[in-house]
């Protein structure tokens, strides 16, 4: 039991070091949210004036959205890295050693939670600097960050499962492009749910991205309706468990295919 924890932490450390040694990755993952916050923040500034939007300032509305979106995108592409490890034989080297099998996947999931925490914190601070207000205070921010972690871990696990099963970069690129942007636009990341067409609202109800945005945003209001927050957070936990199970299954299938 302790072996799975210790080995998972070794793997996490190794994965994080790998990320930190890729300046392009750091640059992109820092600059992208800034661009989104500033660009969309300016572009859609007056969107809140539409009757029924339901928010006073767009930057207040957008910041939790960008937090969630960033977690989604960085996790969505994470499968690339395990694919690289498989291709280079790194995974096989772990497998011929007495490495705990699960730790190869758990190490990834811990890595996603940690990167989600760091990225969320940076975006929240940035949002604060450009004038976003978070009436929900610390508990609200905590809910937002946890929602981002859950979404990141779930999507990251899914991305790893697809990467392990397909082992083709083309498939990964296609799957990520096909899934990530629609998931974003079929949620209230940029646009109030009340103003979406009915069919979009119907889909958004089952969209994990929307669960994360809605519960984070609700928790940040002055008087949160926790009845909105908890069911969605619980649904996110279920999503993480399902995707985590898929990733572990995919890895077992890989082991049997060697």
């Amino acid at each position, binding site marked *: 039991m302790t072996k799975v924890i210790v080995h998972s932490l070794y793997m996490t450390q190794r994965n994080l070091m790998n990320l930190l040694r890729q300046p392009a990755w750091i640059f992109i993952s820092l600059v992208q949210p800034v661009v989104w916050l500033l660009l969309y923040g300016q572009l859609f500034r007056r969107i809140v004036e539409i009757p029924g939007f339901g928010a006073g300032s767009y930057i207040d509305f957008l910041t939790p959205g960008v937090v969630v979106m960033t977690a989604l995108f960085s996790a969505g592409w994470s499968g690339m890295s395990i694919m690289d490890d498989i291709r280079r034989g790194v995974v*096989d080297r772990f497998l011929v050693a007495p490495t705990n099998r699960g730790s190869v996947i758990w190490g990834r999931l811990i890595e996603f939670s940690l990167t989600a925490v760091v990225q969320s914190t940076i975006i929240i601070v940035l949002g604060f600097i450009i004038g976003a207000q978070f009436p929900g205070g610390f508990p609200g921010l905590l809910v937002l960050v946890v929602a981002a972690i859950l979404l990141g871990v779930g999507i990251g696990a899914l991305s790893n499962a697809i990467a392990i099963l397909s082992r083709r970069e083309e498939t990964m690129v296609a799957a990520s492009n096909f899934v990530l942007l629609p998931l974003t636009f079929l949620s209230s990341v940029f646009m109030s749910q009340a103003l979406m067409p009915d069919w979009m609202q119907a889909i958004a109800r089952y969209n994990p991205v929307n669960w994360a945005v809605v519960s984070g945003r609700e928790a940040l209001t002055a008087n949160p309706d926790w009845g909105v927050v908890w069911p969605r957070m619980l649904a996110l936990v279920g999503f993480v468990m399902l995707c985590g199970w898929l990733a572990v299954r995919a890895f077992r299938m890989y082991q049997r295919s060697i």
Partner: protein
Amino acid sequence: MDSAIEARTLVKTYKGGVRALDGVSLSAASGTVFGLLGPNGAGKSTIVKILTTLSRPDSGEAWVAGINVVRDPGKVRRVIGVVAQNSGLDVNATGRENLILQGRLYGMRGPAMRRRADELLERLGVADAANRIVRTYSGGMKRKLDVAVGLMQKPKVLFLDEPTTGLDPEARVDMWAEVSRLAGQEGLTILLTTHYLEEADHLAQRLAIVDKGRVVAEGTPDELKGELRGDTITMLLEERSLDGLVHRILKNMPSVREVAVEDKTVRARADVGASALPIMLAALEAEGVRVASVTVSRPSLDDVYLRYAGRAFSEADQELKK
């Protein structure tokens, strides 16, 4: 049982019906270098994958250091070191970090682990690059670090899968020297796969020739060569022989055996090459076959391969690359 590696009738079929192994048996004594020689795709890597617990055989059994690889894979992993064909180094980490992570996965820790890492970096001559990112290493340096990583946990059995493939001649000679040094140290058994005949000849005490998923011959390099009596005669024709003409002419000569014709190359064996050669040349000339060049040599592993696999090594290698 004094064999460090023992395999009995291993069979492995991959999805899509490719039969990678078709009943492979072999046995390597403790403290020796055992060579697996064969062209690309012969099944060498599959044998290594099964012996290193990466892959399960469809049938057959195997033991490494006396431990059954199918029933007790966890225990096998504790006593082996693997230098895979597909390196497996973490290219975004430094050389030392690669060794440290390897040590940790085997439960090593603290100053003892660091000392072991330093010792290996020193011994394999990559100490100067220890704190550099592996991505910046040359091919030869990467391969040395691969070996260091495989040795980190002090294995009893070391698997070297094509350790010199892709290396330049200088790095290859370096690697050979390293393998020779390792051989027999602390009772270390090495299983070496290679598709270089001279490498197997040079490094392995015993070897098995693998072709199309089967072991076609096994013995010491000298034994294998000794089974071939006499000299090898190799002729290069000026043009391709038509309709097996050359084959027919030479086959009927009493002093000539094992005639094989491929394209413009003719190979044959004779008890005394120097006396058989003039007769062969005369017979060919009488039929109008023009010979461009001739060599007479003592048997090599190439000849051994030709004899057991029924085709020249280089030809088998090319065939599989297609």
